């Protein structure tokens, strides 16, 4: 057991967290209303835009932002960069919560949620449907994430007052030891599959998605940008929680991590531009109409953090790391919003903007994630690094 990793019960929360709880309360009320009154009463979704904020943000962007665990797992377990190991558990918490809450968003969003279990009826599967693969992969990945995180729970329960929990810890430990390799491998395979497929979902919208975005490369672009977002979230969350729990920022790790991010961003930009040129859409990119501007902003959002992090000096300052991470997250979110909502035009005069209840529910899901993260990190050995008490600042 890593002696530096432990729970943090002594952390006090800033007052702003009360706002989060209020938001969650409001969200729960709205969710109840959604189930009682139907989607039409609570959302601004319509037949032209059947997928709105909850899909574009909470599911698609939310799971991409929850790819911290995926991104770190690639680094640590495939590329064998063990130095990043302390980042694994906190990333897994964000991922597990993020994906679980994305599942909640899905239950909220689908109209006939009582039939959801039928997705597991193998004999009814339609293998042509990308959404089938996305749904099954995400369901499996949620399970995998919590299993990956379970060693932290078992560690804590080893000394639990409850006999049942101690028993679980005893029995679970050896099983996990053996299986964990294959679980971790699954935890890298599954996001590769479904994060790319989240891009493939829009391949069917041949005449509705603007040609600057509609490309057979959609799965690749989604995958690369999700990796960038995953790393960005790790930096973002690491900096924030270090501050929150009065621990020193793991600057060295984050700095070297950010050099990785530069590479990923550049790969994305190259692929994006090559695709636009090969498909003859370069003129559209510089027409300076609405779509062109969306595209150019997207490029700028990916390029800016790459440029920011080129200098070693920038990489070693927490502030610029944090800014770059924010921009990267924004870039990935911008791209996904474009593909799913803004560059998606079904014609026939349809327009969409989320309603107030939609926004409240989305924000409450984010609030839930933050509160959940804090709750888990307090109770279970997740965070490592040096505490403020042991090091002179």
């Amino acid at each position, binding site marked *: 057991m890593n002696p530096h990793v432990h729970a943090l019960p002594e952390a006090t929360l800033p007052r702003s967290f009360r706002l989060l709880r209020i938001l969650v309360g409001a969200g729960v009320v709205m969710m109840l209303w959604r189930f009682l009154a139907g989607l039409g009463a609570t959302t601004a979704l319509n037949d032209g835009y059947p997928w709105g904020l909850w899909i574009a943000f909470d599911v698609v962007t939310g799971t991409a932002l929850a790819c911290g665990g995926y991104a770190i797992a690639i680094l640590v377990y495939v590329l064998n960069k063990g130095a990043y190991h302390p980042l694994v558990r906190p990333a897994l918490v964000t991922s597990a919560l993020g994906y679980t809450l994305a599942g909640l968003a899905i239950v909220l969003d689908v109209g006939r949620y009582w039939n959801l279990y039928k997705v597991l009826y193998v004999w009814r599967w339609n293998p042509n449907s990308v959404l089938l693969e996305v749904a099954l992969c995400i369901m499996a990945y949620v399970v995998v994430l919590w299993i990956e995180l379970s060693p932290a729970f078992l560690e804590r329960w080893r000394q639990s007052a409850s006999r049942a929990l101690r028993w679980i810890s005893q029995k679970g430990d050896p099983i996990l030891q053996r299986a964990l390799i294959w679980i971790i491998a699954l935890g890298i395979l599954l996001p590769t599959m479904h994060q790319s497929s989240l891009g493939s979902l829009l391949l069917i919208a041949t005449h509705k998605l603007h040609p600057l975005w509609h490309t057979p490369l959609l799965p690749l672009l989604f995958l690369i940008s999700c990796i960038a977002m995953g790393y960005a979230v790790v930096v973002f969350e690491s900096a924030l929680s270090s501050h929150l729990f009065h621990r020193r920022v793991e600057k060295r790790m984050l700095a070297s991590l950010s050099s990785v991010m530069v590479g990923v961003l550049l790969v994305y930009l190259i692929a994006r531009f090559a695709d636009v040129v090969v498909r003859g859409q370069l003129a559209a990119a510089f027409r300076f109409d609405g779509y062109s501007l969306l595209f150019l902003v997207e490029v700028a959002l990916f390029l800016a953090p790459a440029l920011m992090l080129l200098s070693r000096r920038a990489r070693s*300052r927490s502030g610029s790391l944090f800014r770059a991470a924010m921009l990267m997250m924004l870039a990935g979110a911008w791209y996904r919003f474009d593909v799913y909502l803004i560059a998606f035009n079904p014609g026939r005069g349809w327009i969409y903007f989320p309603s107030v209840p939609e926004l409240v529910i989305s924000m409450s899901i984010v609030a839930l994630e933050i509160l959940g993260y804090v709750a888990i990190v307090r109770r279970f050995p997740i965070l490592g690094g040096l505490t403020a008490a042991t090091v002179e600042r």
Partner: protein
Amino acid sequence: MAAAAVGLPASAARKMVEAVDHGLKPSVIWLSFQECTGCTESLLRTSHPGLADLILDVISLDYHEALCAAAGEQAEAARRRAIEEHAGQYVCVIEGAIPTKDGGIYCRIGGRTALEIVKETARRAGAIIAIGSCASFGGVPSADPNPTGAKGAPHVLKDRRVVTIPGCPANPYTFLGVVLQFVTFGTLPALDEWGRPLFAYRRTIHEDCPRRPHFDAGRFAETFGDEGHRRGYCLYKLGCKGPQTHAPCALKRFGEVGAWPIGVGHPCAGCTEPHLAFRVPIHTTVKIEHPTPPSTFPSTAPERGKVSPVATGIAGLVGGALLGAGFRWARKLDEEESPPEASEEVSS
């Protein structure tokens, strides 16, 4: 025309005549209770067959208080004799409502209440026809507060099948059609749940009204005598009960001159409907039970809704606030930190 009213072929007319020629003129006993005799009067205004032809050549009208020659005990005796001689075959026609309160004393003929008379006469009738709204479901006498407990014949004769021909007055050709069918074939036409013959009461006024195109185009008379009224626009807003009234008036008019209420500019009063006639005020609008599309057309390029400015505002504020807070916090991080060690090797 009466044969056509029941949808019988022209050959039926010959059959009817043959039946008559063999001396088989069926007996008809016509009872009159709380009525205005309007239904009899409407029967007078027919000519295919005319009433004279009807009662002289087609049927044997053995009892009718307005039309028979006899009076008093003689007339009552004729009724009882007809019942005896033609038991099981005569047609019992009832005009007018039947008071049921206080033993039915509010209508007595020859010392006997209407209740007694109708039960006695209907008991051995081959067919029972209630003509007019009063006999069908109570009509005018049954309007609130209904002091006499006036009821329609089906209510009083619960164990018998009663053909009802509501209307105020009833359309005489509907009545004639039913009678002639019974006389010729011994059968009664298909009836709805109120006992009304479907051939006349299946469709609503609204479905066959000649002013329907005005309704579909949204052209209405708003008040009596206004421009719309003069132009013959739809009378829906003046309280026309056509949409809920099952009756043939739009097609089979009255008085052999094509007269009917809507045609002369007055909204239909719903006189054939128990829940409308003499219950809902004449100028109160009713709901359209089976709406149909109007005569306007949506465009092939429809306009859609709007975006909520409140939502846009909230989203913008929240997004902006988060971004701003993030950048401010990043600056704080920079300031908090000691200057970075320039020689630090960042390795993995």
